[in-house]
């Protein structure tokens, strides 16, 4: 006789911990493949207070993560790829069970997601050489420019591809040293929380990546006006949502990157593995130093 499975609770990921929503709310996740009255599981329904807590954690983590040597950031992202790969069967199972992917598609998605993480991991200690310059100014000055992270970014994840979308969103934010709060819709929540477990065991410092699952329509208006966020990465094709988020971003001159939903980009390596995704949340700092005696 086989034992019933141990029930798994999908919670939030804030400041390196897995709390339930402070609101105590959950949302039922139903089977995407067939109509059923019985939900597959319950997902934590994050509140605006959860987003605030996550934003604070991300702000606190920014100093350390942005100052970490690029080699360390690269190794941590590599570690995330290691763990994503070693838990590949679990991700595949979840992609088929919770997200309705075919087994073949799920397998391809996990492989692509690991590849993508590795691709980005390798950029950490090269970004400064890609975007850095020594500028030949007129006069006796040593003048150079270098990339620096923007700060705390709020990412609004797409419902699918749940894993590949999430990795493609988060990796380019993390590479230069930004920290992130990711608002995840119900459909992608089991995958996001499992990815959080990968993060939690990859030496990614607490607060660098935070995940708030729930109803994006409820959370977006609050997250988009939060002044703790220096930038938004939005995946949406809803004209009204895009306009509202972009208008709210103007209140604090936030850096805004908007991508249409279901962007085929995530599946196309040449498109998704492109430095422009990292460029969105980079600042270029120029320093002048007098040369003399």
């Amino acid at each position, binding site marked *: 006789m086989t034992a019933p499975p141990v029930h798994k609770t999908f919670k939030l990921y804030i400041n390196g911990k897995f709390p339930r929503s402070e609101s105590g709310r959950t949302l039922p996740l139903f089977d995407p493949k067939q109509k059923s009255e019985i939900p597959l599981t319950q997902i934590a329904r994050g509140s605006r207070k959860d987003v605030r807590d996550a934003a604070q954690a991300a702000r606190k983590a920014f100093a350390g993560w942005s100052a970490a040597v690029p080699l360390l950031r690269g190794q941590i992202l590599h570690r995330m790829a290691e763990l994503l790969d070693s838990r590949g069967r679990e991700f595949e199972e979840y992609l088929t069970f919770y997200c309705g992917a075919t087994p073949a598609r799920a397998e391809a998605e996990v492989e692509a997601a690991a590849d993508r993480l590795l691709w980005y991991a390798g950029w950490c200690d090269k970004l400064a050489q*890609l*975007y850095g*310059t020594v*500028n*030949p*100014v*007129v*006069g006796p*000055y040593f*003048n150079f*420019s270098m990339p620096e992270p*923007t700060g705390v970014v709020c990412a609004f994840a797409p419902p699918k591809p749940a894993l590949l979308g999430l990795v493609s969103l988060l990796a380019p934010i993390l590479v230069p040293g930004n920290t992130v709060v990711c608002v995840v819709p119900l459909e992608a929540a089991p995958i996001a929380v499992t990815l959080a477990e990968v993060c939690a065991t990859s030496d990614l410092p607490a607060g660098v990546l935070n995940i708030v699952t729930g109803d994006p329509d409820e959370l977006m208006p609050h997250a988009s006006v939060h002044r703790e966020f*220096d930038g938004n990465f939005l995946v949406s094709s809803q*004209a009204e949502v*895009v*306009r*509202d*988020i*972009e*208008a709210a*971003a*103007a*209140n*604090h*001159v936030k*850096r805004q990157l908007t991508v249409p939903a279901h962007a085929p980009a995530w599946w196309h390596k040449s498109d998704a593995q*492109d*430095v*422009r995704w990292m*460029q969105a949340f980079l*600042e*270029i*700092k*120029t*320093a*002048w*130093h*007098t040369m003399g005696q």
Partner: protein
Amino acid sequence: MTRVQESSDPRVEPKRPVHPLAAPPESWDYATSIEDASLANLRDRYDLWIDGEWVKPAKKLWFESINPSTEQTLSEVAHAGPTDVDKAVRAARRALPGWRDMPASHRARILFAVSRLLQERSRELAVLETLDNGKPIRESRDVDVVLAAQHFFYYAGWTDKLDHVLPAGRKAEPIGVCGQVIPWNFPLLMAAWKLAPALAGGNTCVLKPAETTSLTALRLAEILEEAGVPPGVVNIVTGAGETGAALVNHPDVDKIAFTGSTDVGKLIQKSLAGTGKRLTLELGGKAAHLIFDDAPLDQAVEGIIQGIYFNQGQVCCAGSRLLVQESVERQLIDLLLARMQNIRVGNPLDKNTDLGAINSEEQLAKIESYLEIGEHEGATRRGPQCELPASGYWCAPTLFTGVTPTMRIATEEIFGPVLSVLTFRTPDEAIEKANNSLYGLSAGIWSDKGSKVFRMIEKLRAGVVWANTYNKFDASSPFGGYKESGFGREGGWHGLFPYLK
């Protein structure tokens, strides 16, 4: 000509022994050396520059452009309404294929020619800029016009090398029609900053100068024509805020570039929400200027003066928040006040003048309101008592001591010759205070210790950091802000990104 005079005002420091270099002999004086205003060759009235022609504004409205140092009218400038802006955008759209698809080497020749013509006509342009803006001729001659020419030269050279720009090795394409709105503090230079990279990238432009300083941009139109820039590639629409709004909100503009106040920048960002138009913003600042106790103080004093009184402090990156290490505060303020005695305020056309006129009555009123606010907040206002010209808009160089970090004069952009002095004890406190601002455009550091300088450069959250110098600019050097000081860079390789896709 005006002279800096000893004051009986109790707020002004009594003379006390200071550094020998800071105390000139009593008899020392300058002979006036006034540049010839007629070199500006002004017309009585300027129309709009659209599609390679001077076009009268649809509503037949013109406004006066005045010399802020005399309040005399220089000329009349057309007021462009939505109809005129539409006409300009259409002209830019029509001109796009021809300009974009022209052999790149031909575009390069034309842009190089613009640079050379700016150099050839530099004296005329400097006089015109000084008349229209009020800045000292020394600055318009040695900074504005020189850098404007350098910008065109630098980007002209990129024109036929665009496939080397984008990191991913993508083929570079222009964005399309660019709407560019520029401020009044460096009128010609800002026009060059906007136009040169856009044109090098194969874009076409509609430029809206600030309403108080349209004249050098209109003169630039003549130069562009003479250099062979085809009709419609650059269009210049003059007017005030509503002209800018018509341009920003025009549906057929692909990209907006704006330099100006953070408030207006936010309005523009908001109005572009959901439109898919590209945007770069270069907005306000409240730069921290850090003086450590191991700094070469005599040189630092020159840097501080240059940092806050250059262009009457009407500079977005002005070093307006001086942070001095406590142990050298007293000594530094003494040196500064003594040095301020030697700042010559007066006729901007005089080659000896250090501090010219404030650009407009409105700006002067804003600066004066901050002088009152500072005193009201409990800071101590200090500086030489200058005899200021009877007409025109003038503000004597000023500094406030006893400033605390939460005062409005320590947090808000004044955009005038007003320095707020604060102190710190440790490098960490300096970093914290410096970064405690909504802005992040620029910062300065003075220290003789290299390792400390580089740590400060790393920790300061600002787009430009000057170490042992201040307010230096170069066409090859990217400039732009962090946080609410905007996004996107102008100058250098990075300055091409906003104009290519």
